[in-house]
């Protein structure tokens, strides 16, 4: 039983079905009605530091490629267009180069691009940049179509318009299914893929899972002839005097789409579920985009939309079995990378469900890690330097 028909739930359903399990996918709304329908579909390795998230990203990208090769590429608009990260100053370029060295060691392709070569890759890029890094593995999908087509390919029994109100547990504490507003559904295993609402679903089983909303805006322009070829964003070197740390800060990703509009996204704010328009956030997006591509100044934004990323205090998702509740699995909290990380998450969950050992070490993603009083991120809020 997978709760949540976003991209993550859809991928869990697909790989679980492929592992030979019978799958029911339940969602209170339609397919892709949650954050999946409110974000972008960047599948990135370029923005991740070496560590568990990058390992999950590399696995996921490989799986996205396989799905695309299996004939789904057109259905969910898969494009392996590559990412181009540019640096405006020599300092920023130096830290980008450092980051890339670490990423390369972890298995990422990262190709340095000299200042004078940037325009060969992106003819409309601003002048005067110090250089950049090309990440050929970065790709993209259309998230809502991806979710819909993964669900369809899974052959899972789809139960939309049903809200899970309780996780049913037997006398031994083990999961037996879910109660919904339209009757019970029985299953010996429940996967919590409820995204930003993952904490609420965990609470239905009586366990804590700190998933919180982080708002993001995306800008969509009028349709244009293709002018932006890669996913392009700026890496800027920021010396934070107060904390004595030097972090690399990124500006919004600018990218063209098959349908013509250019997407600029996304902002990050922790404001709860406030849906009202924020001009400062959107202003920052537009400023970042026009700094990279001056021609965009005269291009119109047709719409701005907001979504709520599911984030956890240490900016890593919860993936795997919950030792506190036998039969309960979590696959949520992917923050700004849930589309990219969906396939790997789905495969790992399926491997756990099938009783095998998952091909990545899941201990850093343990759902109960915040119960540990010694966990460094138990109380911290904002740690990651990535503001995209």
């Amino acid at each position: 039983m997978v709760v949540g028909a976003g991209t993550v739930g859809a991928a869990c359903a697909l790989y679980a079905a492929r592992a030979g399990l019978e799958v029911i996918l339940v969602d209170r709304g339609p397919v892709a009605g949650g954050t999946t329908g409110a974000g972008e579909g960047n599948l990135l390795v370029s923005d991740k530091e070496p560590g568990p998230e990058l390992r999950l990203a590399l696995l996921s990208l490989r799986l996205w490629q396989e799905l695309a090769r299996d004939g789904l590429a057109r259905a969910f608009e898969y494009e392996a267009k590559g990412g181009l990260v540019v640096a405006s100053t020599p300092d920023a370029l130096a830290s980008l180069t450092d980051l890339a060295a670490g990423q390369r060691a972890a298995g990422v392709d990262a190709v340095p691009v000299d200042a004078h070569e940037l325009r060969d890759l992106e003819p409309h890029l601003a002048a005067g940049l110090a250089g950049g890094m090309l990440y050929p593995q970065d790709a993209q999908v259309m998230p809502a179509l991806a979710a819909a087509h993964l669900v369809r390919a899974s052959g899972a029994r789809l139960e939309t318009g049903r809200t899970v109100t309780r996780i049913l547990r037997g006398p031994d504490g083990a999961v037996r299914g879910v109660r919904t507003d339209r009757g019970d559904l029985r299953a010996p295993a429940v996967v919590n893929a409820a995204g930003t609402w993952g904490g609420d679903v965990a609470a239905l089983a009586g366990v804590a899972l700190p998933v919180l909303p982080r708002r993001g805006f995306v800008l969509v322009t009028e349709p244009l002839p293709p002018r932006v070829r890669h996913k392009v964003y700026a890496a800027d070197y920021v010396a934070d005097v107060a904390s004595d740390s030097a972090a690399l800060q990124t500006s919004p990703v600018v990218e063209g789409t098959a349908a013509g509009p250019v997407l600029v996204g996304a902002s990050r704010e922790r404001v709860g579920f406030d849906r009202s328009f924020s001009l400062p956030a959107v202003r920052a997006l537009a400023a970042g985009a026009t700094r990279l591509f001056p021609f965009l100044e005269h291009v119109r934004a047709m719409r701005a939309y907001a979504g709520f990323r599911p984030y956890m205090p240490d900016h890593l998702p919860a993936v795997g079995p919950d030792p506190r509740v036998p039969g309960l699995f979590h696959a949520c909290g992917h923050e700004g990378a849930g589309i990219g990380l969906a396939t790997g998450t789905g495969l790992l969950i399926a491997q756990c469900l099938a009783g095998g050992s998952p091909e990545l070490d899941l201990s850093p993603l343990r759902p109960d890690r915040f119960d540990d009083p010694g966990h460094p991120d138990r109380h911290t809020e904002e740690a990651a330097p990535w503001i995209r």
Partner: protein
Amino acid sequence: MTERRPVLAVIGAGPAGLAAALAAASRGVRVVLVDSAPSVGGQFYRQPVPGPGARRSQMLAHQRRTWDRLRAGLDVHLTAGRVTHLSDRHVWCVERESGRFVVHALLGPAQEESAAVRADAVLLATGGYEKVLPFPGWTLPGVVTAGGAQALSKGGLSLPGRVAVVAGSGPLLLPVATGLAAAGTRVVALIETAAPAAFARQARTWATTPVKLAEGAVHAARLLRRRTSVMSRHMVVEAHGEDRVESVTVTAVGADGRPAPGSERRIVCDLLAVGHGLLPHTDLAEGLGCRLDGASVRVDDEQRTDVPGVWAAGEATGIGGADLSLAEGHIAGRSAAARLTGTAPDPRGWARAARTRTRLRTFFAALESAYGEPPARWPEQVTDDTVVCRCEEVTAGAVREAVAELGAGDLRTVKLLTRAGMGWCQGRVCEPGVAGVAGCALAPARRLLARPVPLGVLAAPADPTPPQ
């Protein structure tokens, strides 16, 4: 130093905005009246384009008197500097800024530069837009919206046809047919989905209601009786033509809401004006985070939204004709003035307007249920190959597939999975049609940018200027 007068920004200079501006300006408030049109008036008092060949405005006597009063009152306030009219300003966003507001507008007609005004409160009087439903042939040249036809005939512009059919549902069809006829078009048929009884009751209600609007109805009925065949409980199921509309197929509506078998007939025409009423403009309100009631901005008895400092009046808060907009605007303007000048608002002061408001809201609610709805089964007439979203060229078949096979279940997911509503109009035209074909509710669209805005403007919006 004199004390600064509080500033109220009124967005929209139709009946609601004008009434609000006058009420507030007379009560110690500085009003900035912002509208996208070159002159005040809104939908209803839209002024004919001056110049040779301009037709006489078709306003009725009482309407002209009201308009003259509004105009004269406005002129007095403009001269005295209590009201500033900023024309050709397309408001794309109202920003909340520590208890005050900044109204950001693109300068028309190019809409490339932005200007901003700061205000202590805002009053949204942005009116409504037309509800359009698709049918086979609706994209042919010569098929126009009822409001579009009305604007053309009022504006004294040349009409795209000589022989017209007016079709659809709702109370606007009569004035539209009248307007077309007065502008020299031969209106051969008025096709109305309401039942004859409802239609007749309607004309009677309009004639007996103290609403001045009734004059219009009587006037229209007289005009139409001369040469238009009025077909109630009928609908247009298809428009035909090669390069433009040449004829339409009309059928009777059966008891089940479907076309009655064997009732088809063709009517030759070169202009088809179709309308299904209006929908409130809520973009700016949604950007501000105001709560909606269904499709309209929710307001209290003083016309306040649930966001402090934001009032709304007129068609943005529900559809009900020019007189209702005037009453609501008046109340909103008085309430805003009282609250901005720190006096307690006194509803007794606007008791007459409040009575008019109650009467007209009741009247239009009844009208809506008796008369306003298209036949329940209209989506069945939309063939799979009919384009339902013109900007993105999405067919009805694609919408149906998204629902049946991909798990779409609301307007938003239909849009995500088909691109319907993602083009230039941002769904303003196609949403009701797409929702109908998809079989889901018409939910508010949350268009956070009320107008397309150049990224250069978004990156560095103009600083607010104090009102001159």
